[in-house]
């Protein structure tokens, strides 16, 4: 094999030299041979040094490709059972009563404490909450009820009682949820943020009503 590649390289080199001889201006033709014989010392040294240092990569987190092969991005329609998620809903109710301090009673609307309540509601977590779509621009989403399992920037993923996972866009929907005696209406338009970022984001003061 080596001999054939050598002869092939020789051929290629010869053809290049011929090409140069025909195309270079006449007074420079004689220089070609001497020019080709000069060795570039640093060219060889550099390549050797590069081979000595293989770059070691430390991968700590999963890459996107690895996550995809493990199936982190798609949740099949029937993969999550409602019974498993009910437990999450129970823990969520405990969590939300603690966050909103419901034991101490709910403050009057338009008072100072009311603002802090809405703020903490905005910063709370919605995984495991029982959501009902009340209003939506798309009529087929209305009256869908289920427990939220995933909260992305623009969508909620909910599991309904018949074990079906549905994805609901936040922007066009208005949600409702029940906390003991109280009914809370959430405008999905205002919840459009990544769940991890929402806790540090500043809230815009006024709500512009939909037309």
């Amino acid at each position, binding site marked *: 094999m080596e001999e054939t590649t050598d002869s092939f390289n020789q051929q290629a080199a010869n053809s290049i030299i011929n090409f140069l001889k025909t195309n270079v201006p006449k007074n420079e033709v004689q220089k070609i041979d001497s020019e080709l014989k000069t060795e570039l010392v640093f060219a060889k040294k550099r390549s050797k040094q590069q081979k000595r240092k293989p770059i070691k990569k430390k991968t*700590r*987190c*999963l890459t996107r490709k*690895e996550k995809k092969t*493990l*199936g*982190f991005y798609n*949740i099949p329609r029937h*993969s*999550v*059972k409602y019974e*498993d998620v009910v*437990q*999450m809903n129970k*823990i*969520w109710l405990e*969590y939300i009563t*603690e*966050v909103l*301090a419901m034991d101490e009673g709910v403050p009057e609307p338009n008072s100072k404490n009311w603002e802090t309540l809405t703020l*903490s509601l905005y*910063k*709370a*977590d919605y*995984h*495991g909450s029982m959501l009902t779509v009340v209003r939506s621009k798309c009529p087929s989403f209305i009256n869908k009820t289920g427990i939220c*399992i*995933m909260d992305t920037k623009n969508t909620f993923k909910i599991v309904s009682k018949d074990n079906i996972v549905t994805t609901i866009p936040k922007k066009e929907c208005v949600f409702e949820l029940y906390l003991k005696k109280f009914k809370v209406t959430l405008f999905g338009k205002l919840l459009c943020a990544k*769940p*991890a*970022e929402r*806790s*540090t984001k500043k809230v815009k003061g006024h709500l512009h009503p939909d037309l």
Partner: protein
Amino acid sequence: MRQKIQGNDAFQRINYLYQISKAMASKNTILSSYYGNLVVNIAKKNVLKIHPEVKRQICKKCRSILIENVSTNMKIRNHNKLKRIEWKCNICGERKGLPAEKNKDHRVWVEKEEAVVEIIK
């Protein structure tokens, strides 16, 4: 009225997500690791430290909760004549080790008694 603690809502959130991540570990590994990932991300975003006891239970690579015989298998190994506990994640295969010598105190400072100054309820 309760005393206000800085970053309290984020701590509560981390606590809640840790709980549901643990609850889902045996049922749905994908969701469990998704919640574990959120725990780490929220702590990053709010510049908070996760308590070492919680942090030890999260897989370094796929961030799912490690529970013995459910999502991980424990081994005790000798490493340079020192004993180490090693957990191997069943989802991604990452190993996680901690020193476990009998006569030594391996607690971090946060876990020791003198670290607790005041308990706020």
